[in-house]
């Protein structure tokens, strides 16, 4: 298959010949090589089962939580191979937001935001903590909505608010990269629009990698987009080009809605 993959200058992440296999012979990601642009939104698209989530999870090694996994190739964060780093350090630099909002139900909103610090045993002074909580919540435009109920549990929040809380939790750690796995698939259109606006704001300070099922979302907010099919990276280009002038037939079919 003819692939069309752009080169990224000075990428923050460079994925090199990455393959991920479940149970030895079932390849979920096949020999993917691509760079991720700093301070930009990169979308990963493709039909379900194409390996996009596995690729995303390979970036912070969350895929290692699956049993019997083998990974070959490497991913570099700047110049460091993430498979040589400790997961503790890596995940501090690469944060993650999941498909369904998953705030910790036993913790207050405040404690959810600084959960990363607590989990990692980092003690902050009270004033530092307050500051981290406030900035993180402001960054996700949730501060005004919850500032009077910081010490309540977050279960009264709407789905969209909960997802923003989860983004704030990831931001609180000041990561370099934020990975989002279909973050709006469980949300209504209004909440989705808010999150999308938020992501566009956030790319000023963070690098964002986004897996999405929703093509119009990729078209709306991403700078670059990847199209994966059966574990292979078929096409990787600037978003405007991939949507207006896809080089590969498979991409074309997917984008025009002929399958997927």
């Amino acid at each position, binding site marked *: 298959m003819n692939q069309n993959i752009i080169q990224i200058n000075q990428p923050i992440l460079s994925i090199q010949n990455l393959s991920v296999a479940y149970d030895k012979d079932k390849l979920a990601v096949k020999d993917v090589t691509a760079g991720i642009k700093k301070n930009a939104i990169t979308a990963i698209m493709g039909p379900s089962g194409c390996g996009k989530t596995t690729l995303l999870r390979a970036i912070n090694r969350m895929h290692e939580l699956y049993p019997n996994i083998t990974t070959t190739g490497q991913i570099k964060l700047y110049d460091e191979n993430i498979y040589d780093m*400790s997961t*503790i350090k890596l995940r501090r630099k690469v944060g993650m937001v999941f498909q369904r909002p998953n705030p910790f139900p036993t913790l207050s909103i405040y404690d959810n935001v600084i959960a990363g610090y607590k989990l990692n*045993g980092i003690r902050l002074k009270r004033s530092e903590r307050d500051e981290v909580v406030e900035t993180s919540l402001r960054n996700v435009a949730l501060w005004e909505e919850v500032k009077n109920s910081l010490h309540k549990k977050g279960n009264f929040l709407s789905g969209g608010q909960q997802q923003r809380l989860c983004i704030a939790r990831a931001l609180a750690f000041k990561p370099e990269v934020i990975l989002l796995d279909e973050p709006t698939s469980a949300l209504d259109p209004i909440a989705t629009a808010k999150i999308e606006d938020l992501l566009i704001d956030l790319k000023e*300070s963070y690098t964002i990698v986004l897996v999405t099922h929703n093509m119009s979302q990729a078209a709306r907010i991403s700078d670059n987009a990847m199209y994966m099919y059966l574990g292979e990276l078929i096409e990787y280009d600037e978003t405007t080009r991939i949507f207006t002038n896809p080089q590969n037939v498979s991409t074309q079919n997917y984008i025009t809605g002929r399958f997927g």
Partner: protein
Amino acid sequence: MKNTDLIENERNVFVNDHQKVRNFKNKLLLVVVVLFSALTAFPIILIVGNLLVKGYHQINLAFFTQVPPDTFTAMMAKSSGQIIPGGIVNGITGTILMVGFASLIAIPFGIMIGIYLYEKKDARYANFVRNITDVLQGVPSIVIGLITYLWVVISITKGYSALAGSISLSIMMLPLIIRSTEETMKMIPPTLKEAAVALGTPYHKVIFKVLIPSSLGGLMTGILISISRILGETAPLLLTALGNPAVNWKLSQPTSSVPLLIWQFYNDPNMVSLIFSSSLFLMGFVLTLNLISKRIAAKRSIQ
């Protein structure tokens, strides 16, 4: 929006090096968990192994066909290094008699009450009955023995009897069967019952043609588990059935059972080797029943 440079600065602050300690603790916990888990599995191996080694040579034909010898005969056999003659047939028949009669009472009543609770899911009275059933399930077996002593031994049979033993065992079985019946019935798809009701089937036929047949596996599991629980019960029988050196099939008479015989042998230093054979037999039976019921339960959950 936040100033980008500030974020860059803050990012570099994080190099705290608890990492090694944390990874060490993480591995330590795994080691501790595996160690303690292995320790948990250890006793059952020791117990079964111990009974096998000490008990097997006493198990022969006589073990199943004869009553235990008197203590003098046992002493003679012991001192001349032979195996003790005789067996535990009075215990085996007593257990069959009492467990059988207990099942005869507890199974039909348990299933009826279970169906009642299933039908009345949230009614106040049903909830009350359910809670009382839970309380009954937690009552120590010795207390059930006391009660049956007061109810049956003193008032009905005017003396220790197999009937009293059976009733104490059936009181122990009842809550187990009620709850397992209700839980099993809950898993029947409601459409199945509705279909039968829609056809105008009378209610008792719905019970016998739909509810019971489609939950047979679960009912069997519940019954087998409850039987395996009471097979080894000793304490309530001490207060109700007492024991009997001969085979007895009369409900009104004192009767032995396998665990009662074990208790008797335990109190007689000459009978020591019979203890282990009887325990091996009892354990083998109970554990086999347990495994069979697990098998049935597993099969059912696959369907």
